[in-house]
């Protein structure tokens, strides 16, 4: 779809095995268990998105984290081959358009990718997560505003104090220099 790129689809296995059993898909390819470098890259990217998140929200549809043009979404998944544990599907998409009309189609594509790996997700939930995650406005950063105002206030106070003391010195100097009339 125009302006949308699915970067990662990741589901850790239902059993207790290590990452060999977890499903990882990157840019159109399923990663094998041996592709450790790519899997490490996945974890690094997830960490980077969370660290730079403009917002990070959990709701009944799952979790959405937005960082620039990247949107990370986590929704519930279930294995088709009957394991008891609930799974989480983590999806990262790059979005280069402001609207959310892409949400349903992209969710359908991701549901199909997971279906091939015998994992089932509710694509309408994923679409809702995309929609909510992408359309939600970044909350106003009061802390940053406070810091900027405090820094500006401090800078103005220093400038005022410096100008005042410079003015005093100038006055004192002027007072010390004898005028031509006095010399005579």
């Amino acid at each position, binding site marked *: 779809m125009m302006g949308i790129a699915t970067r990662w689809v*990741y*589901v*850790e296995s239902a059993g*207790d*095995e*290590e*990452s*060999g059993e*977890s499903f990882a898909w990157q840019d159109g390819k399923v990663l094998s268990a041996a592709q*450790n470098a790519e*899997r*490490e890259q*996945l*974890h*690094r990217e*997830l*960490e980077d*998105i*969370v*660290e730079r*998140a403009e917002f*990070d929200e959990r709701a009944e549809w799952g*979790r959405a*984290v937005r960082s620039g043009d990247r949107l*990370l979404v*986590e929704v519930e998944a279930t294995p088709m081959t009957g394991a008891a*544990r*609930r*799974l*989480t599907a*983590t999806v990262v998409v790059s979005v280069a358009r402001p609207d959310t009309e892409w949400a349903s189609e992209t969710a359908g594509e991701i549901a199909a990718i997971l279906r091939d790996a015998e994992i089932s997700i509710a694509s309408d939930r994923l679409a809702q997560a995309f929609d909510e995650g992408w359309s939600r406005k970044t909350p106003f950063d009061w802390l940053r505003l406070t810091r900027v105002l405090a820094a500006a206030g401090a800078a103005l106070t220093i400038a005022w104090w410096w100008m005042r003391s410079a003015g005093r010195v100038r006055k004192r100097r002027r007072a010390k220099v004898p005028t031509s009339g006095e010399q005579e």
Partner: protein
Amino acid sequence: MAPLVPWVAVTAGGAAVSWYLVRRLRRRKYRIAVLGARYSGKTTLINSWRGEWVEDEFDPGRTQAPQRYAKTKLTAEGLRLTFTNLTDVAGAINAWPAWEDRVKESRYVLYLVDARALAGSLRLFKGRDWHRLEDDAGLMGGWLGANHVELCLMVVTHTDEDARLRKLGEEQYQELVMTQLDPLILKLGGPRKVRVVIGSLKRLQDAQGVTAQIMREIIGWEKSK
């Protein structure tokens, strides 16, 4: 000259009090890394700190994408601590680079050890068995040595699911666990840099007990400096 003396004394006194207060406040705000293999209890412990206790049947499963909390305040047995930028990381081996990042920016490291791995009941589960603990300890020992971590706390969890506890009783069980942990402690930097906390995270009150032990260790360490 004489009128200056009280002014100097007041200024010096004020500066000393401010310095003491700032140090005291700073002393109780730390960065901590909570690490451990899958199902070792990282999310459960962090949730208990944040008042978001989740019973087993509603367990949302594994942590895949990390979760960051700007400020987490702990109070137990009259002690108070604040952890800043606390991150709940994944326990997969592919998340080791993310673990290293956490260690780099932390003053304290909690390494959660599943008692079932010590008991040998996880030997069929690759990535959660004794070998995983050895691998983790080897890597973390290197990171701890290279960074500014003050103390590493090994937190043995899931003791409620270790049959040896019922068989041996509390005291003997702890002795046995400590003996088992010895090689890992050495890998992590030796007993001078590593402390051990043993408990269960089965119920909220158990988790609070573990938290109180962790806090006692951290505050004790800070006071000893």
